């Protein structure tokens, strides 16, 4: 933006608005909207606070093509219990059995709800009649494993607008364009009950104070920790650039517990503009499963089953191998145990020895028509940010999926080659620790979607959102509104607005700070960790917090929201380093490597929280969820009864 242009919105920087609700939902993505809808259906007065506008905001706002692990759908051949067991086993126990059981058990219920709201979940237009992935009776369409049918193909671009309408119908108060900045606690005490939140309007600068009998944290997972580009900040990560884990930072500040924050993976997508637009480059994963991959001379690289047996027919790619009950997902992204061997799992050296030549291409031309048209036209079109930037964009340039092949870059779906220290929170990353009500250790603070530890996708967000909303509504029945602590509000207001009064010419911008944090994280908390290095990195971040944050500047409320995000990124970076310091040994499934690893001692979950200046840890058994079916039913008797009727 050019210096000196007028800000088009009225300044409300000295204004403050107070609102209250039974259930206060923070974040209006898939999880937040579903939480709000469930709580409102229970007759609760609900407020949703959203940084952008709920119609298209959040990681799933622009669309989604898969609804994973809907084990209770009418065509499923798998139980929620066996799926969760496989998901836990796949990750040697480093996964969230509670949230994923909710995903498997209630995902289908939420999908039916979304259909009633106006979302499209069936092939009602009869475009794919006769396709092997379509159930002719229900018109549901499945992906990956056509025998077991637990992952559905959905028309996800229709979902968020439908949810927005439903919230309106139910009388949910949606506060758009307000970024949540902090959580309020009883008497302002660390670790006490969560009773509300503060926020600022990203256009006018108005300060908001929200009170709730119960609060649902439904904000994003962290991002832009290691990856930043001042030139292309919008392309730094996979999810929207405004989804950077504000919730994690504000939870940490009030003493919420976090799990698996030491986990990070080598960057998979969109690192500082290195990748190509998601789903636009050649690959054979998830959305693109099971595209053929060919080499520079058009020679096809074969698929093999998990036992290495070459698959002769294209349709074999959609069925488990001999003796295998089922496989999960499409595309072997994370060395999963429950999958197949695809062209991407063969080492390049081996491919070279076999005579394949670079570059490779994704080839839909030889697929059966239904398979080709469902990948290019439905999956690429309904998946997040594919309708316009990929499907429409390519069509305008004359792309024909029956004729053209698209080049692959890097390995598998990443569409780039990344350095080991270029890391991301991806593939079941860390987040808030939860119990069977999806409540955190902070009473009254429920957690859903990407804010939870080991979160993944759209169905998980919707299922845990609905579940958290329901349990928050129950909590609201038993608890009163508390008046927020005036000191806590005053301190927060001063913190939030300070950068607006800094000197524009000498102040440090959000971009300069984000770039510096990313460099520190790459240098001191990269692929291989070491105690002294981690502690040095931590001391630099603490110095940024005490000496640099006070020098930051924002020219308007939009810039201020961006800056507050980066200040939260600074906090999240410290959580990651603290968690890394407290795990002493290598852990394969957390992709956690220490050069000073002390072999021998087994470490389960190491849950951490902040108490004043101290960091407190506790070890938690990987099986803390217990018997999932039994515990789920013990906590959801009323819901189970209700669903029977």
């Amino acid at each position, binding site marked *: *933006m050019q210096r000196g242009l*007028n800000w088009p919105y009225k300044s409300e920087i000295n204004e403050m608005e107070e609102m209250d609700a039974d259930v206060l939902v923070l974040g209006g993505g898939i999880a937040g909207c579903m939480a709000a809808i469930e709580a409102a259906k229970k007759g609760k007065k609900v407020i949703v606070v959203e940084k*952008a506008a709920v119609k298209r905001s959040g990681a799933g706002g622009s669309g989604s093509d898969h609804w994973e692990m809907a084990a209770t759908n009418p065509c499923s051949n798998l139980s929620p219990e066996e799926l969760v067991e496989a998901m836990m086993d796949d990750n040697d126990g480093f996964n969230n059995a509670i949230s994923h059981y909710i995903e498997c058990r209630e995902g289908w219920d939420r999908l039916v709800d979304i259909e009633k709201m106006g979302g499209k979940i069936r092939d009602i237009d009869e475009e794919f009649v006769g396709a092997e992935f379509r159930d002719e009776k229900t018109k549901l369409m499945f992906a990956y494993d056509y025998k077991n049918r637990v992952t559905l193909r959905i028309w996800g671009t229709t979902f968020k607008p439908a949810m927005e309408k439903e919230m309106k119908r139910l009388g949910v108060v949606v506060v758009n364009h307000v970024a949540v900045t902090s959580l309020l606690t009883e008497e302002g005490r660390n670790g006490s009950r969560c009773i509300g939140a503060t926020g600022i309007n990203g256009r006018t600068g108005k300060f908001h104070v929200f009170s709730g009998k119960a609060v649902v944290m439904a904000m994003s997972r962290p991002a832009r920790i290691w990856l930043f580009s001042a030139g292309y900040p*919008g392309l730094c990560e996979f999810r929207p650039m405004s989804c950077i884990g504000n919730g994690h930072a504000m939870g940490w500040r009030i003493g919420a517990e976090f799990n698996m924050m030491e986990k990070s993976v080598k960057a998979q997508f969109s690192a500082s503009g290195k990748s190509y637009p998601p789903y636009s480059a*050649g690959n054979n994963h998830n959305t693109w499963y099971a595209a053929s991959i060919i080499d520079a001379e058009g020679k096809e690289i074969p698929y093999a089953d998990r036992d290495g047996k070459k698959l002769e027919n294209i349709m074999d790619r959609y069925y488990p191998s001999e003796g295998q009950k089922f496989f999960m997902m499409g595309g072997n992204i994370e060395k999963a145990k429950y999958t197949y061997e695809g062209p991407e799992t063969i080492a390049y050296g081996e491919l070279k020895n076999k005579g394949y030549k670079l570059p490779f291409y994704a080839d839909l*031309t030889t697929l059966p028509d239904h398979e080709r048209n469902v990948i290019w036209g439905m999956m690429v079109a309904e998946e997040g940010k594919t309708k316009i930037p990929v499907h429409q964009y390519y069509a305008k340039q004359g792309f024909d999926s029956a*004729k053209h*092949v698209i080049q692959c870059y890097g390995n598998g779906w990443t569409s780039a080659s990344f350095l080991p220290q270029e890391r991301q929170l991806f593939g079941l990353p860390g987040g808030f620790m939860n119990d069977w009500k999806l409540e955190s250790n902070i009473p009254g603070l429920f957690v859903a979607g990407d804010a939870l530890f080991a979160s993944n996708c759209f169905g998980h967000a919707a299922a845990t959102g609905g579940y958290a909303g329901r349990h928050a509504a129950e909590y609201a029945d038993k608890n009163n509104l508390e008046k927020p602590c005036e000191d806590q509000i005053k301190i927060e207001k001063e913190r939030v607005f300070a950068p607006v009064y800094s000197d524009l010419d000498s102040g440090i911008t959000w971009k300069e700070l984000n770039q510096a944090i990313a460099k520190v994280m790459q240098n001191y908390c990269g692929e291989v960790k070491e105690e002294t290095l981690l502690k040095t990195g931590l001391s630099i971040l603490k110095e940024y917090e005490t000496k640099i944050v006070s020098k930051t500047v924002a020219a308007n409320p939009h810039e201020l929201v961006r800056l507050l995000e980066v200040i939260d990124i600074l906090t999240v970076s410290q959580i990651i380093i603290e968690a890394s310091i407290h795990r002493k040994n290598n852990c394969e499934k957390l992709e956690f490597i220490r050069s000073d690893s002390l072999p021998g001692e087994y470490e389960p979950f190491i849950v951490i929280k902040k108490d004043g200046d101290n960091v407190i840890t506790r070890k938690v058994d990987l099986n803390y969820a217990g018997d999932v079916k039994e515990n789920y039913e013990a906590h959801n008797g009323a819901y189970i009864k209700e669903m029977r009727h």
Partner: protein
Amino acid sequence: MSRSFTLRHVEPSKPITFDPKKCIGCNRCVNVCPIDILLPSASNGETPVVAYPDECWYCGCCVMECPAEAIILGHPLMNQVRWVEKKSLMKEGDLK
């Protein structure tokens, strides 16, 4: 030929272009953008301003929302994916 010079901020890419002939100035795109990178024009009914192009996530939600098909989403040059006709890869004998 003489040319007068100007001072300007150089952007690394131009994600969104408005067709001023088609744009009705309704600002629906401004209000739906998940990153809030657009600002309403100072004059009522005119094309919105792409205030923060570098923050664009290239999701196309503005295009989906536009009732007048007035918005074109592009990609930075570095993000133009290469695709070819399959025929061009095959040796003559391999062609079916």
